[in-house]
C-alpha cells in the first residue's frame, strides 16, 4: 500500500518551523542569554528580592497543592458516592472564572468595605497576603484535581470496588485508605504536579491579593522588574528568575498528568450509588465551601458592578448599569477585540497544529515532537514571555503577534491532547470497515474519521479559546500600546482604583466565558436515548 504522500514533507515542515518559532528558539535564546551574562545573572539570583520571591512562590505552590488536592479529591469522592450532578457542576465551576476575576470577587466579598463588611460588619483580615493568595489559587486549581481524580475513579469503577471492600467487612475509612487512595495515587501525584505548575504560573491572583500586602511571587517580581524598574540589572534578574522557573517546570513536567486527554468529564456520567447520611453531610460541607468560595464572591462582584456607589445598600433601588457604560471605554472595546481575535487565532492555530501533531505521532520523531508542547505547558507563562521577548525584541515587541506566539506555545497542548485522545478512542475496526466497504483513504478521512472527531475538534477549540481569552500572566508582560487585552485593561483599572468599573468588566468577561465554556465542561448537549429492546 502507498505509505508516503506529497503533503508529508509539508506537514513535517510546518511542525518543525512552528515548534522552533513558538518554543524552541525562545527557550534557546533564553539559555544563551543566561550563559553570556552568567556572572550578572548568578548575582541576580542571590538578590534578596529574588530569594524572598522564590521562597514565597515555593510556599504558595506547596500550600496550594495540598489545599486543592483536599478540596478536589473530597469533591470527586463525594460526587461519585452521591451521584450528584449539581455538586459535580459546582466543583468544576471555578474553572470557568478567570483566576484574577476570582481574586477581585473575593476582595469585593470579604475585604474591608466588601459585601460581608457592609451587611454584617465581617471582614477577612488575612485576605491580602500569603493565605488569601494560596486559598484563591487553590479554589481555581481544585477543578483540575476534581476532573483528574474523577476520571481515575470512573476508570477504575472505584464505587464497585469500595462496595466489594465494604461487603468484605471493611469500614468506610479502611475502604478509603486501602482501596480508593491506592487506586487514585497516580492521579493525585499527577494533578498535584499540575497544581504546582498553575500556582507557580499565577500572576493575577498574587497581583490582586499579594501585592497590596507587599507579598511578591516570582511572577509579580518578573513583571515589576520588566515593567517598572529603571535598574539595568532588573532585566537580568527577570531572565534569571525565568530560567529557574523553566528548570523547575522541566523537572515537574515528567509528573504532569495530562490535564485534558482521556479524562472523562464526570458530570452526567456519575454512577448511581447508595447515598449514606455521612455522604450527605460531606456534600453539605462541600456546598458550604462552594457558597463561600464561589457564589458569595460572584454575587459581591455583580453587586459592586451594579450598585451606584460604594457604601450604598445593595438593594434594587440603588442598581444601575452606568458602571458598565463607563467601563466600556474605547480602550476597553479595543482590548476586548484584541482578546477575542487573539483567542480565535490561538484556538484555530492550536487545533490545526494539534491535529498535525496527531498525524505524525506514529513515528519516533513525532513522539519526541509531542512532548515539546506538553513541556511548554508546564513552563510558567512569565518565563515563556521573557524568552519570547528576548527572542523577538525589538521587531515584535508590544505587538499582538508576539502575544500570539507565546499563546500558541503555551496552549498548543490543550488542543493536541483532546485530539490525540479522540483519535485513540476511534477503534481501528471502524476505519477497516469503511475500507472493506469500498472507501479509499480520503473518503475514510472525510466521511468516517472526520465526523467522529468533530466534537473533539470543537471541544479543543473552545478550550484553547477560553484559556486565551482571559489570559493575564503572559499578556501583562507583553502588551504595549494598541496590543492591550481585556484582562490587562481590567487589572490596570483596578490598580487605578476604579473598583466598580473593574467589576463591570470582570462580570462581562465571566459571563462570556461561562456562556461559551459551560457546554464544554458540563456536557450540556442533546443526549441520545439508549433503547435496549431486543
Amino acid at each position: 500500500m502507498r505509505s508516503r504522500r506529497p503533503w508529508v514533507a509539508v506537514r513535517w515542515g510546518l511542525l518543525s518551523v512552528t515548534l522552533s518559532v513558538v518554543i524552541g528558539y525562545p527557550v534557546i535564546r533564553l539559555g544563551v542569554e543566561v550563559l553570556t551574562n552568567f556572572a550578572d545573572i548568578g548575582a541576580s539570583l542571590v538578590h534578596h528580592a529574588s530569594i524572598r520571591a522564590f521562597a514565597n512562590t515555593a510556599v504558595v505552590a506547596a500550600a496550594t497543592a495540598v489545599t486543592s488536592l483536599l478540596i478536589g479529591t473530597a469533591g470527586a469522592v463525594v460526587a461519585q458516592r452521591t451521584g450528584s450532578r449539581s455538586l459535580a457542576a459546582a466543583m468544576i465551576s471555578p474553572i470557568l472564572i478567570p483566576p484574577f476575576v476570582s481574586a477581585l470577587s473575593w476582595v469585593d466579598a470579604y475585604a474591608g468595605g466588601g459585601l460581608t463588611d457592609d451587611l454584617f460588619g465581617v471582614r477577612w483580615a488575612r485576605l491580602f497576603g500569603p493565605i488569601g493568595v494560596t486559598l484563591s489559587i487553590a479554589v481555581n486549581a481544585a477543578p483540575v484535581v476534581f476532573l483528574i481524580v474523577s476520571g481515575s475513579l470512573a476508570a477504575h469503577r472505584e464505587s464497585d470496588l469500595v462496595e466489594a471492600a465494604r461487603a468484605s467487612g471493611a469500614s468506610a475509612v479502611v475502604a478509603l485508605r486501602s482501596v480508593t487512595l491506592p487506586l487514585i495515587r497516580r492521579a493525585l501525584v499527577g494533578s498535584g504536579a499540575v497544581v504546582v505548575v498553575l500556582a507557580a504560573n499565577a500572576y493575577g491572583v498574587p497581583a490582586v491579593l499579594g501585592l497590596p500586602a507587599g507579598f511578591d511571587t516570582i511572577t509579580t517580581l518578573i513583571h515589576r522588574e520588566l515593567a517598572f524598574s529603571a535598574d539595568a540589572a532588573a532585566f537580568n534578574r527577570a531572565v534569571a528568575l525565568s530560567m529557574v522557573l523553566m528548570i523547575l517546570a522541566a523537572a515537574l513536567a515528567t509528573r504532569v498528568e495530562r490535564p485534558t486527554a482521556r479524562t472523562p468529564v464526570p458530570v452526567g456520567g456519575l454512577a448511581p450509588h447508595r447515598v449514606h447520611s455521612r455522604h450527605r453531610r460531606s456534600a453539605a460541607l462541600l456546598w458550604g465551601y462552594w457558597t463561600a468560595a464561589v457564589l458569595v464572591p460572584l454575587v459581591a462582584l455583580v453587586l459592586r458592578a451594579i450598585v451606584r456607589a460604594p457604601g450604598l445598600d445593595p438593594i434594587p433601588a440603588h442598581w444601575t448599569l452606568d458602571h458598565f457604560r463607563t467601563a466600556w471605554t474605547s480602550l476597553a472595546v479595543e482590548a476586548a477585540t484584541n482578546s477575542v481575535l487573539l483567542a480565535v487565532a490561538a484556538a484555530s492555530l492550536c487545533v490545526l497544529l494539534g491535529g498535525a501533531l496527531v498525524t505524525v505521532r506514529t513515528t519516533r520523531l513525532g513522539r519526541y515532537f509531542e512532548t515539546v508542547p506538553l513541556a511548554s505547558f508546564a513552563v510558567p507563562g512569565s518565563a515563556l514571555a521573557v524568552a519570547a521577548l528576548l527572542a523577538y525584541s525589538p521587531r515584535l515587541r508590544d505587538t499582538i503577534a508576539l502575544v500570539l506566539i507565546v499563546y500558541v506555545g503555551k496552549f498548543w497542548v490543550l488542543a493536541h491532547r483532546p485530539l490525540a485522545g479522540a483519535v485513540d478512542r476511534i477503534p481501528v475496526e471502524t476505519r477497516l470497515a469503511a475500507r472493506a466497504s469500498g472507501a479509499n483513504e480520503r473518503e475514510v478521512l472525510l466521511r468516517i474519521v472526520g465526523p467522529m472527531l468533530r466534537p473533539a475538534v470543537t471541544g479543543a477549540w473552545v478550550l484553547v479559546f477560553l484559556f486565551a481569552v482571559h489570559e493575564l500572566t503572559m499578556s501583562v508582560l507583553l502588551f504595549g500600546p494598541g496590543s492591550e487585552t481585556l484582562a490587562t485593561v481590567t487589572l490596570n483599572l483596578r490598580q487605578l482604583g476604579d473598583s466598580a468599573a473593574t467589576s463591570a468588566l470582570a462580570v462581562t468577561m465571566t459571563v462570556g466565558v461561562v456562556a461559551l465554556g459551560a457546554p464544554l465542561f458540563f456536557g450540556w448537549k442533546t443526549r441520545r436515548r439508549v433503547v435496549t429492546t431486543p
Partner: protein
Amino acid sequence: MEDAPTGRHDAVIEFRGVTVAYGRHEVLREATGSVAAGTTLTLLGPSGSGKTTLLNALAGFVGVVEGEVAIDGVVRSSPGRTDPPDSRNVGVAFQQIALWPHMTLLENVAFPLRQAGERRAACEQIARELLDRVGIGDLGDRFPSQVSGGQQQRAGVARAIARRPAVYLLDEPTAHLDAPLRSDIQRALRLEQRERGAAIVMATHDPSDGLAFADTVAVLREGRITRTDTPEAVYDDPGDEWTARMTGTISVLRVADPTDLLLIGGLPGPGSLLVRPEWVDVGEGAAVATVVDSWFRGDHVEAGLDTAWGSLTVRLPRPDRPAPGTNVRWRLRRSVPTGD
C-alpha cells in the same frame, strides 16, 4: 503492479501457505485453504488461535510475509504486495461490530452501496431490505448507541453483505446473539449466499455455530490450521483429544488392559478412546458405572458417569433421568482412538 491471474477459477477465494507476522512474532503460519462459490468455510479455534488474523489477511488489513491470497482468480496479497481492502470485493463483519457511531443503522448499511456508485434512493431501498432481512427493518433511523448489542450485530452483518461482494468474511458474526436470533441470522446469510453465490469464510470459537454453518471446517490451533475437512468428518473422527473437545462434548477413556474391551465394547483399542455422548448405549452391556450427575437438555438428558476407565458423559432419551449414585449398565457403540 499488474494483477496476476492464478489460473484456478473454481475457488472464489484461495489462500496458500499464508504466514502473518507482527514484528518478528509469527501469529499465523502456512495457512492454506479455498472456498468455492456458494460454500462456507468455518475457521474454528479458541481465542488467539489465528482466526481473526487469517480473516484480516484475506481482507487486506494485514500483509502476508509468506504465501498468497487470491480472490476471483487474482492474487491480492503476496510478500511485498497487499492490495487495499476496497479493491478486493469482500464484505467484512467484525467481532467488535464497528458500526460508525455518527451514522444511523440505515446509513451504515447504505455506505458500502454508495461507495459502489449506487444512487442514493436505491441505496436506501436496498439498505432497508437488508435490515428487514436481518430482522431490524424498523430501526433504520436509529443510531448505534440507541440500539442493543444484538441489534448492532445484525446491522453489522447487513452492512457486510450490502455490496453483494464475492466473499463474506465474518468474524464471530453471532457472538452477541441468543440462540433464536443466531438461527435467524444464519438463515438470512444462507439465503443471501444462495441468491448471490457468495463464498463465506466465518471465524468462530463455538462448535455448534462452526459445524452447523459450514461446508468445510478448518480447525486452528496456535496459529496453524491443524485439520481441514467436512463438519461430519471432523466430528466423527476428530483425530486427537484437543480437536475433539473443540468440536463438541467428548469423554476420554484410558483402557490399559485389552481384555477390558470385551467388557465395554470399545474398538479398536487399547489405549485412550474418544467417546461422544451419543456413542454410548446405557442400560445395555456388562460394564457398570455410577451416575455422578444429570442435566436436563430439553429434548434429551445428559448424564455424567463414573467408570473404571474414567469419567464418561452419555446421552439418554427423555424421560430417563437417573438419580446421582444410581448404578447403570453401559457399553460403547462406537469410539475412536485419540491418536495423541
